[in-house]
Structure formats: C-alpha cells, structure tokens
C-alpha cells in the first residue's frame, strides 16, 4: 500500500542482530539484550502490518505470530537440543493457532497431532538415545552462524518486499478470515461436485481430498507405508549392540 519500503525492511536487521546475539558462543552474553532487540523488531514489524479491523482477530494474530517467531528464534539458537525440541513444540502450537485464524481447523488439529504428538516425541526419544554423557561441543559452536543469519534475513527481506510489492491485501472482494470455496469446474469425480448446501471447511476439505486428490492421497498413504518399512529396515537392531 502506501508504506515506504524502508519501514518494512527496518525490523529485519534488528531481528537479525537479535538472532546473532542469541547464537551460542564461547562468551557468555546476557540474553536480555537479545530480548530487547527482539521486542523492538517485532514491534516494528507489527507496526507495518495491516490490521483486519477486528480487534480480537488482531490480538490473536499478534500473540500467535509473536510466539511463533520468538520460539523459532529460540529453537535455532538454544544450546540444548532438548530445549530446542520443546521450543519447536511451541512453534507448532503457534502455527496451529494461525491455521485456526485462517479457517483451517483440520490442518491445525492434524499439525498438533502429527507434530506435537508424534514427531517431537520421537525426536526427544532419539535425543535421549543418542546424546552423549559429556557436554557436546557441536551444540555450542554453530558453523557459519553469522553468515547464515545474514543470508536468511536477506532472503526474508526479499520475500517481504515481494509480498508487499504484489500485496494480496489489495484484493477487496474476499471476506477476510473466511474461506469460501468456489465450485470446482470441470471435474469428473462426483465426489468433488459442488454442493449447494453450505458446509464447513472440514467437509469441503474431505471432499476435495478424497475427490480431486484421491490418487494423490493413495500415493501419500503408500509413501507412509514405504517410509515405515524403510525406517524399520534402517534403524539399528538391538542385536547389533549399542543404543
């Protein structure tokens, strides 16, 4: 819209500085500095985003987004892998909240179940199985930390600029916060036939998955099966000793 480019790009170096400060290093650094920087960055970011006009929605978005970003930053910088995994759980929950805000309740539930329920627990198990008894220096010395941060934030800057440049917010015909599917045209599958009766997003998603994407769903199921067999095959046997 009318926001100057500089204002949009301003939060990024601040955020980058916060992440760099947080990166593990031999020297002890007070985390409060990073905290202040992070808060400034998020504040600057929040200032330039559009509000939806609905105060509840804005508040919810701000909370979820802030939790996601802060947890994400903590996850990639924490010295302890176990803490990282827990931070990741928080990221997942926050993202699920953002899914809810966009009327994707099925995805939100699925994400919580798959990520928080399965993946993170498995990660924690593996961490416990595979962590050394002494301190591991590889968790305390990142490789290319500064360069990685700068590069990633550059990419983020590019993405932000392009999002802003072709801002989807100029679309006015949509009702924000609501997903209203249009009738699918030209599909032969009777399941994907557009239904006149108003149904929820979950119903529609199910119809779409098992109608339009039936083969893809079958393929995905096969993929899961294959991955399961593969994981069982690859994982070390107890008879092979260790672990």
């Amino acid at each position, binding site marked *: 819209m009318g926001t100057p480019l500089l204002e949009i790009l301003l939060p990024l170096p601040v*955020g980058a500085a916060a992440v760099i400060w947080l990166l593990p290093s*031999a020297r002890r650094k007070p985390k409060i500095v990073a905290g202040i920087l992070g808060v400034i960055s998020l504040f600057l970011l929040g200032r330039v*985003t*559009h509000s*939806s006009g609905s105060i509840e929605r804005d508040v919810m978005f701000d909370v979820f987004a802030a939790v996601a970003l802060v947890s994400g930053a903590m*996850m*990639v910088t924490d010295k*302890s*892998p176990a*803490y*990282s995994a827990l931070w*990741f759980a928080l*990221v997942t929950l926050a*993202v699920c909240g953002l*899914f809810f805000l966009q009327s*994707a309740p099925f*995805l939100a539930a*699925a994400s919580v179940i*798959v*990520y928080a329920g399965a*993946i993170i627990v498995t*990660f924690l198990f593996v961490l*416990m199985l*595979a*962590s050394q008894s*002494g*301190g591991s*220096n*590889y*968790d*305390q010395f990142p*490789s290319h930390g500064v360069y*990685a*941060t700068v*590069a990633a934030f550059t*990419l983020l800057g590019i*993405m*932000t600029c392009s*999002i*802003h440049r072709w801002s*989807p*917010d*100029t679309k*006015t015909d*949509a*009702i*924000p916060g609501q997903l209203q599917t249009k009738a699918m045209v030209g599909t032969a599958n009777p399941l994907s036939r557009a239904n006149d009766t108003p149904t929820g*997003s979950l119903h*529609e998603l199910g119809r779409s998955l098992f109608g339009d*994407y039936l083969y*893809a769903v079958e393929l*995905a199921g096969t*993929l*899961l099966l*294959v*991955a399961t067999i593969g*994981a069982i095959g690859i*994982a070390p046997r107890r008879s*092979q000793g*260790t672990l």
Partner: protein
Amino acid sequence: MSPDYERFLVVGAALFALGAIGFLSRRNLILMVLSAEMMLHGVGLSLVTFSRLHQSLEGQAFTVFVLTVAACEAGLALSLILLLYQSKKSLDINVWTEAREADLPPPVEVSGVPSKDEPQVFPKLTPAGLPPDPSRFSSQPTRDINASPKKGGQS
C-alpha cells in the same frame, strides 16, 4: 474487516528464514532435521494463506500432503540419524567429511576447544513423590539425564 493476507505471509516467510538459519548453522543432526521441519511449517502457513486468498482448497490439501511427507521424512531421518550415531558415536554433522575431494586434507575443526566447564544443560522436571533410591540403579549405565546435581542445572 479488511484483508490481512500479507501479515500471515510475512510470518510464514519469517518461519522459513529462521528454519534456514537453524539448518545452516546448527551442527547437531537432529536439530538440522528439526529446522527443516520448521521451514515446512513456514511453507504450510503460506499455503494455507494462499488457499484463503484464492478461495480454494488446493492450498489446504497441499498442506496435508506436506504434513504426510514431513512425517515420513522425520521417521526416516531419525532412523538414519541413529544409524550414523551408531557408527561415529556423535551427532555432529562435521564428522562426516568423506564426500570431500580425495586429496584435500580433512577440514579443520571450526571451533576446536570444547567448553568442558559448561556441561550440557538438560531440562529438569520437579520430582513428584519420593525420590528414587540411587543405589538401586548403580549397576546400570549412567545416562541419567539429571545427573549433574552439584551444578544446580539452572540455565
């Protein structure tokens, strides 16, 4: 209400970027996989936003598949990691340097000195009920994650 797609997209991009930082800078195999999962989160968020933007379910359906693939990937990655760990007894990605040019010397350890004075810190849950009798576990291998009581374990 006015449209607010942009801020969701920005958050998705930011999650992607943070994941990228983690993937690039962390040396722990598990954390690299975890960072990749976070990048997938960013992508998923963007897809859902686009789904809403275009008033179509394609984005959401796609996210379901992303979720599936992520689950497969996590399962396979973890068993591979276990396998790697078994052979080198380390989760450090930098001990695997066999892919280098044959006549190059092995890369120098980026930051050689392990800080022995700062042991790994693990989260500690408040014990509930009676504390277990340590003598009962003395014969077992010591991989007790709460095994540093003298340092206090405060982060």
